[in-house]
């Protein structure tokens, strides 16, 4: 296999990289890989939080970065830097800005899943198939409404499959 860049040397670097939603293929010899700055060693971890860092910093000016969690001592500004909270109590300490952030990340700020079996917060644990079906039907409606027909067709098939099995 020959290097796609120089067309002369044997390719030694074999991988593809996802950037955004685009896949770029690298088939390079060592020299060209180095010239192009393509890392050949172990890769750096992509951090979802790098993207969130942008998300957070845009809002920084308007947010109470002086807030501090009394339980673990982390400042809100530190959380904005690292993207990591210090303890469970941080969620209450930074309640308002965090509620906003959760909503922006997840598109929702209300938990709809399980709770610990003895928990007082119990949203009833999902009863498998019937819940699956209900959820799928809802997603199908949404997909049709948004004209995502490929997804809708897949959902329809999954619903049929589930109905046949039950």
């Amino acid at each position, binding site marked *: *296999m020959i290097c796609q860049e120089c067309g002369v040397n044997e390719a*030694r670097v*074999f*991988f*593809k*990289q*996802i*950037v955004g*939603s*685009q*896949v770029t293929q690298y088939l390079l010899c060592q020299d060209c890989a180095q010239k192009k700055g393509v890392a050949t060693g172990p*890769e*750096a*971890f*992509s951090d*979802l*939080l790098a993207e969130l860092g942008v998300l957070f910093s845009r809002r920084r000016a308007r947010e109470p970065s002086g807030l501090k969690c009394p339980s*673990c*001592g*982390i400042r809100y500004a530190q959380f904005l830097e*690292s*993207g*990591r*909270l*210090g*303890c*469970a109590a941080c*969620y*209450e300490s930074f309640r308002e800005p*965090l509620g906003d952030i*959760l909503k922006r*990340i*997840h*598109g*929702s*700020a*209300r*938990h*709809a*899943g*399980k*709770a*610990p*079996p*003895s928990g007082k*917060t119990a949203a009833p644990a*999902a009863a*498998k198939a019937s*819940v*699956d079906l209900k*959820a*799928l039907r809802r*997603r199908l409606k949404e997909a049709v409404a948004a004209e*995502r027909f*490929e*997804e809708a067709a*897949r*959902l329809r*098939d*999954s619903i049929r499959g589930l109905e046949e099995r039950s």
Partner: protein
Amino acid sequence: MQLQNMARLKMAWALPEGRDNGVVLSSRVRLARNLKAYPFPSRAGPKALGAVLDSLFAAARKTAPLAKAAYLKMSDLDPVDRLFLAERHLISRALAQDPDAGGAVVGDREILSCMINEEDHVRLQALDSGLCFRGLWGELDSLDNEISSQVEFAVHPQWGYLCACPTNAGTALRVSALLHLPGLTLTEQINGVLEGLARVGVTARGFYGEGTRVLGDFYQISNAVSLGRSEADFIAGMESTASGLVAREVETRRSIAAGPRKARLEDLVFRSLGILTHARSISYEETLHHLSYLRLAVSMDWDVPVDMVAINELLVLAQPAHVQMSLGKELPAAERDVHRASLLRKKLGAAP
């Protein structure tokens, strides 16, 4: 190197036995959990981290599926051992590099496992071959219930399970599959596919799930958000997405094999076979690049002198820590490449 015994055991996810395993190498379901009484690992001191590790080991030991599991403290392991666990998808590469007070619990055939004191106090994982989210979720849900009855996890009435990173809050559930998509990649449909996934809230990553580097046409897809829907809903959504991708990849493979592109694909496949059976030194990245074409050929029943069991085995055994583990010593990359080439020739039945 203490984990050499483990290297001899089969792990379920690498056996080509699950549904749609020609495309879906493995499915994985994981839950993040934190103990209410301690700060998250990044803010906890050594004493607190030790207490977290002890109480989670104790809780896991009392569960039915993990009573006889292997209990590993990262501090007892050397770097090759830890990388070995990461290559088997049992711990993250981040924990392997920065072991601190980390731990791992590894159940039978490596289907159920826990990773302790990484970003969160514990990540519970269920991992198996082929497309099998529902079955895995059932096992993981009940393991989570068993552990929950012994320790108190941090839960918020509105935001669900609390995690160090708000992207994990809520169900704290990640549903992912490692997909082999050589057809969609060769026909350059992959970019459109990834864009479509992004629109429905599905993230695509590379071979090890954390980075963006794709090796050998293996893509890991997972749900991008975890709050606002039930676990069953996320599972159903990912199952529908993965099934859709399987159908599309299979159809594409069919059309390549039946059309004018077949000659080009045959050339790729047999060149790859030539390299894998004759190289004297080969990196893991290059190995995966060629194994990918070979795997594609096997999935289409082409006449190549290898089967899916051997290919999946090589995907695992050719990794750097596995090569070192099989030789029982640490080796520089150049020497690993020589041993990898010899392993490939042996497994592919080539002349030594």
